[in-house]
C-alpha cells in the first residue's frame, strides 16, 4: 500500500468574483509527497476542499486512482481512501480524545448503523482507536477532553484521525501552523515516517519543512499553478521567487511559529 495517484483536469471554482481555482490541471503520482504552496488567499484550502468533496468544483474533473470522483460526496471519498486534516484543526472539542478517534474508526468501518451495543465497550473499536493514539503519541491523553489539549497535541490528534483506515491519499492543510520549534520538528519527523506510505498533498507555509519533505512542489497564485517541479527547480524559478518565495525565510533556517 503506497498511495494512489491523483489527477485534476481543468478544475475551476469561483466564489462570486473571486477565482479560487483557475482551470487547474495537475497530477500527483502514487506515493508522492506533493507540497502546495502559495500566498494567503491563493486557493490552497479551497483546492483541498474540492479534493475531499466538501466543495464541488464549477467545472473540471478529479480522477483518483484513475476513477472519476468529481460527483462523489465527501463521505464516499473518505471510504475510497482519501483522508484530510484541517487548517487550524477540526476536532470534536467536547469529546474525549479517545472518542474523537473512535468516531474516525467507526466511520471508516463503513457504517455506524449500530443502535444497540455500547460503543465505548466495543473491543474492536477501542483497540483500533488506541493503536492510532499510540502511533500519534497521544495514548496517555486518551481520556482528556480534545478541546483541552495543547495546540500541538490537537494537531497530532487531527492528523491521527485523518490517518485512520490508512488512506491512500492524505490531504494536509498547514499541519505546522502555530507549532513551537520542537513540535514542528516532531511533526516533520512524523510526516517523514508517513511519506511513501500514502500519497500526500501538503499545504504548508513553513518553507524549511516543505523543502525538506516534498518530492515535488506546486506554487499556486490566484488559483493558478504558476510552477511545478522538484524543490531544486522551484528554488531556482525566478517567477516563483518574485511571486512568493521572496517573502519566505531563507531555506535552511527553521521558521518556528507561524
Amino acid at each position, binding site marked *: 500500500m503506497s498511495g494512489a495517484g491523483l489527477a485534476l483536469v481543468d478544475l475551476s471554482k469561483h466564489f462570486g468574483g473571486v477565482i479560487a481555482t483557475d482551470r487547474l490541471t495537475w497530477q500527483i503520482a502514487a506515493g508522492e509527497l506533493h507540497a502546495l504552496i502559495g500566498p494567503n488567499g491563493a486557493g490552497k484550502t479551497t483546492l483541498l476542499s474540492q479534493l*475531499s*468533496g*466538501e466543495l464541488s468544483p464549477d467545472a473540471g474533473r478529479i480522477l483518483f486512482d484513475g476513477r472519476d470522483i468529481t460527483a462523489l*460526496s*465527501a*463521505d464516499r471519498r*473518505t*471510504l475510497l481512501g482519501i483522508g*484530510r486534516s*484541517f487548517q487550524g484543526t*477540526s*476536532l*470534536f*472539542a*467536547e*469529546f474525549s480524545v479517545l*472518542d474523537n478517534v*473512535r*468516531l*474516525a474508526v*467507526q*466511520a*471508516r468501518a463503513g457504517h*455506524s*448503523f*449500530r*443502535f*444497540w*451495543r*455500547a*460503543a*465505548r465497550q*466495543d473491543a474492536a*473499536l477501542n483497540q483500533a482507536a488506541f493503536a492510532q493514539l499510540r502511533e500519534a503519541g497521544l495514548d496517555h491523553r486518551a481520556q482528556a477532553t480534545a478541546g483541552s489539549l495543547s495546540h500541538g497535541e490537537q494537531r497530532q490528534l487531527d492528523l491521527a*484521525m485523518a490517518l*485512520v*483506515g490508512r488512506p491512500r491519499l492524505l490531504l494536509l492543510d498547514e499541519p505546522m501552523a502555530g507549532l513551537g520549534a520542537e513540535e514542528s520538528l516532531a511533526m516533520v519527523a512524523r510526516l517523514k515516517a508517513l511519506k511513501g506510505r500514502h500519497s500526500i498533498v501538503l499545504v504548508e507555509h513553513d518553507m524549511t519543512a516543505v523543502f525538506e519533505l516534498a518530492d515535488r512542489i506546486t506554487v499556486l497564485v490566484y488559483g493558478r499553478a504558476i510552477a511545478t517541479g522538484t524543490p531544486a527547480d522551484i528554488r531556482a524559478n525566478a517567477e516563483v521567487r518574485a511571486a512568493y518565495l521572496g517573502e519566505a525565510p531563507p531555506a535552511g533556517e527553521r521558521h518556528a511559529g507561524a
Partner: protein
Amino acid sequence: MIGDRRRLDWTLLVLFAGVPGAALALDEPYLLDLFARVLIFAIAAVSLDLILGYGGLVSFGHAAFLGIGGYAVGMLYQHDLGSGFLQFPVAVLVSGVAALAIGWVSLRTGGLYFIMITLAFAQMLYYLGISLKVYGGDDGMRARRSEFFAPIDLNDQTQFYYLALAVLALSLWLGRRLVNSRFGLALQGARSNERRLRVLGVPVFRYRLTAFVIAGALCGLAGALFANLNEYASPSTMHWTRSGELIVMVILGGVGTLTGPVLGALAFVLLESYLSEALEALASGFGQHWQVVFGPLLVAVALFARGGLVGLLRPGRGE
C-alpha cells in the same frame, strides 16, 4: 457519571410507581390523572431530546407527532377499530412515516431554517386537522380507551397509568442504549462538528434522519397514550405552543440527558396544574395566566442552573 444518570432514572421510575398507592392513600384519585399526564409528556420530551439534545437540532414542530399518534387512535376508533393492538402500532408507524417525510425536507437545512421549517410542517398538520370536518374539525373527536385482551383494561386508571410508566421506562432504556451506541456517537459527532464527521466518512444526513424518525415514532406513541388519557384527539395537541412546551420541558430539565426531560415534564405539568390553581385561588380568572409566574421561573433556571434541573440534582458538568 452515566452510572449516576441511570440511578436517577431508577429513582424517578420507582417514585412514579408509588403514585397510584399514594393517590389511594391520600384519597386524591385525580393525582393519577395528573401523573399519567406527566408520564406521557415525559415520553414525548425524551423523544425530543434525542434530536434536540443529542442531535443538536432544534425541532419546533415535535407536537405534530403527538397529534398524529392521537389522530391514529381517534380516527380508527371512529371507524369502529378500537383495538389497541391495531391503534398503537398504527400510531407509531404513521408518526414514523410522517417524520421521515418531514425530516427528509427539513434536515437539508440547519439552524434557524430548520426551526422554521419544522414549525411550518407542524402548523400545516394543525390546520389540516382543523379542516377535517369528518373528524370533528377544530373540536377534534372522541376516542374511548384502546381495547386489549381480557385482564388488561385501560379504563382502569391504575392499569392505564402503569402502561404509560412502562412505556416511559422502555423509552429511557432504549434511548440510553441508542445514545451510547455507535449510532449515538455519530449523532453527537454531527452536533459537535458536522463538517469533520462528514470528512471522516459519515453520511450525516442519514443519521439525523434516522434519529428524527425514531424520535417521531416514539412521540407518536406518546400521542396515542395522550388520546387515551383524554379519551379525545384534537388539533390543539399539534398547536405550535405545544411544541414550544416540549422544548421548554427538555431545556428546563436538562438538554441531552434523557433524564432531564423527565424532570422537565414533571415540573412543567405540576406547575401548570398547581400554579394555575393557586393563582385562581388568589383572584378568579387569574389561573389561566399561570405562565406569568412560570416565565420568570424558567429564566431563573436558565440563569442559575445551566444544566437544567438535572444539573441541580447532580452538580457537575452537564455532559
